[in-house]
């Protein structure tokens, strides 16, 4: 009985010490020190990024003295209302590219889930051995800074006043814009039929455009109807051309006798601002060896574009549209700053591409368009 009390006090003390060790980051330190391989170091870092434990993730870096934690957070969590700020890291995969005794290069594929679907981000990370522990050398985040300036914006804006509910029958209204499908091509893919083409606004006013297609079978009866959804630039300014793509999953071209196309256009208020240039476009391969169309977006206006979507249509040697692909850019487009993009191109299509046309859809929080 005499021995019970000291034993009890000793156990409680040990427990409290253990709790204090965990609270003071001892466990994290232990985990960090237990990164005995480059693979473990990157996995531990990305796990912390996934749980948004920025303090611990930042502490895992070999070069945390080179930049501030806020820059590291901004690099991963996004800023300025970009798509990344509405995303979360769903999963990741790490594999080695090069491995040495004291340093290694690891490739990590980050799968972000966002409001517009999954986004992939592939990065090559350098990993260094410090003592017995491997640590990641995070690429120093580079954020272009726009010098203070005044950018005059005096592009057109169109507003619409329609017929009122109290107006008499026969009172004139403003007509919907004239839009026209200039090309259409049905493409067979392994798991689907895809309708691709281009539509042009032939009017002098902006148009909100939607393209629908109906597959007809050998009896000329409809099999399925689908719309272009987000694979089109819905708001077309006068004489602007947009690619469109309509997918019919589960169908094959041999089932289809013809396709009925339907384009609908509405007169909507719109602004000719911002103007976004698409620079340095070229066909390339990504780190995984997939074909991509690369380039950079430059917002030539003075207001931040929060979310940008790149739409690209590809032509064969006869000038026929053979594919349309898209990709969302997870960075905001700050004025005058080039933001890189890459959109996937299927391997079998890439070999036939003779030319391409890129268009940018933009969404700004303050404009809603």
């Amino acid at each position, binding site marked *: 009985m005499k021995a019970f009390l000291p034993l009890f006090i000793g156990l409680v003390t040990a427990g409290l010490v253990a709790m204090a060790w965990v609270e003071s980051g001892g466990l994290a330190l232990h985990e960090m020190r237990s990164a005995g391989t480059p693979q473990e170091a990157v996995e531990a870092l990305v796990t912390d990024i996934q749980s948004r434990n920025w303090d611990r993730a930042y502490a895992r870096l070999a070069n945390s003295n080179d930049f501030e934690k806020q820059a590291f957070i901004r690099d991963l969590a996004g800023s300025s209302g970009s798509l990344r700020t509405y995303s979360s890291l769903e999963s990741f995969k790490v594999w080695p590219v090069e491995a040495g005794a004291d340093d290694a290069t690891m490739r990590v594929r980050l799968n972000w889930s966002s409001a517009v679907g999954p986004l992939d981000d592939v990065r090559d990370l350098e990993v260094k051995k410090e003592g017995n522990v491997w640590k990641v050398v995070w690429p120093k985040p580079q954020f272009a800074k726009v010098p203070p300036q005044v950018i005059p914006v005096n592009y057109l804006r169109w507003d619409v006043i329609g017929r009122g509910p109290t107006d008499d029958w026969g009172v004139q209204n403003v007509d919907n814009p004239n839009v026209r499908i200039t090309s259409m091509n049905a493409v067979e893919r392994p798991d689907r039929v895809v309708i691709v083409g281009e539509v042009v606004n032939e*009017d002098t006013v902006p148009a909100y455009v939607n393209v629908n297609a109906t597959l007809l079978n050998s009896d000329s009866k409809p099999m399925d109807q689908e719309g272009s959804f987000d694979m089109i630039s819905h708001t077309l300014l006068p004489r602007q051309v947009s690619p469109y793509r309509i997918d019919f999953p589960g169908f094959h071209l041999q089932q289809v006798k013809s396709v009925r196309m339907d384009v609908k256009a509405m007169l909507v208020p719109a602004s000719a601002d911002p103007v976004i*240039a698409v620079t340095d476009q070229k066909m390339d391969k990504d780190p995984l060896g997939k074909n991509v169309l690369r380039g950079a977006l430059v917002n030539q206006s003075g207001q931040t574009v929060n979310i940008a979507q790149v739409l690209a249509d590809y032509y064969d040697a006869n000038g026929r549209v053979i594919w349309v692909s898209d990709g969302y850019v997870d960075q905001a487009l700050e004025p005058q700053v080039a933001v890189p993009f890459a959109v996937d191109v299927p391997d079998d299509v890439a070999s036939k591409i003779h030319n391409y046309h890129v268009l940018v859809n933009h969404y700004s929080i303050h404009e809603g368009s």
Partner: protein
Amino acid sequence: MLRLTACLLLLMRLAAFGEVHPPAQVTAGKGFSISTTGSGDASFYLISPGHVAKREVKLGQDIPVDASVVKKAGRYLAIACGSGGCNSAAFYVMAAEPDKVSFFLHPSRVRVKSNDAINATAFVFDQFYNLVLTPVTVDFKVIPKTGPPIDRPIKSNLGVAWMRVASTPKQGPVKVIAEVGKASEPRVIQQVASDACNLRIKATRTAKAVLIETDPLRDCSGNAIPDGTIVSFTEIDGKGKTTVDVPIKKGIARTQLPVNGRAKISVASGVVIGNEISLGGGL
């Protein structure tokens, strides 16, 4: 109403007595009298497209019908029912003189020099909004901003008169008026420029880039292409391709593009392709 009519018609078969004799044709909004034969008291029913009226009358006397009861054009049925049974007669109320015109003009925007592009349709009504089915002349007047007005009288057919007319070569508002008697309905249509003609660009070197701008953009009739119309510039150099869609501002589209070495720059607007210029290196 149909049930009531059927019942009354059934009653009428039971006995023939005093007859009603309305005029064969009546003009909407004008009072008239229906003569009757026989004697004694009777109930008089007037069934019209819009309503049914009943009142007590004396057979053998004229039954006055107020103008307010016959505003709707169409087939009317006059029925007199007395102790001996019912009798009836149908008559038609025709639309009154043309007084109003409903005018549809399509489209609200039209490209210049387009054949049969303007469609004007007028519906002729009397003051009670009855469609005037008798042929009347609708006078269509097309008054462009510049140039002589066009006068086109068209006879209506079953209350409708229509015409097609080509747009003129000059852009701007065109007033189209449909006139019938004192009724006049004006509409305005906008004639807009057609596709760009002779789309040409020129390039000027600046410190860091090349300033590319179009000549003032006009269609083949000399109309200025409206501001806001998109012009697409494409530049291909050693680093790849650069494209930018630029809206026309003050009649000209311009942009600045970085150029690396030799470059080819082309321009397009909608389905119209312009010239291509080549730049040597040295920037």
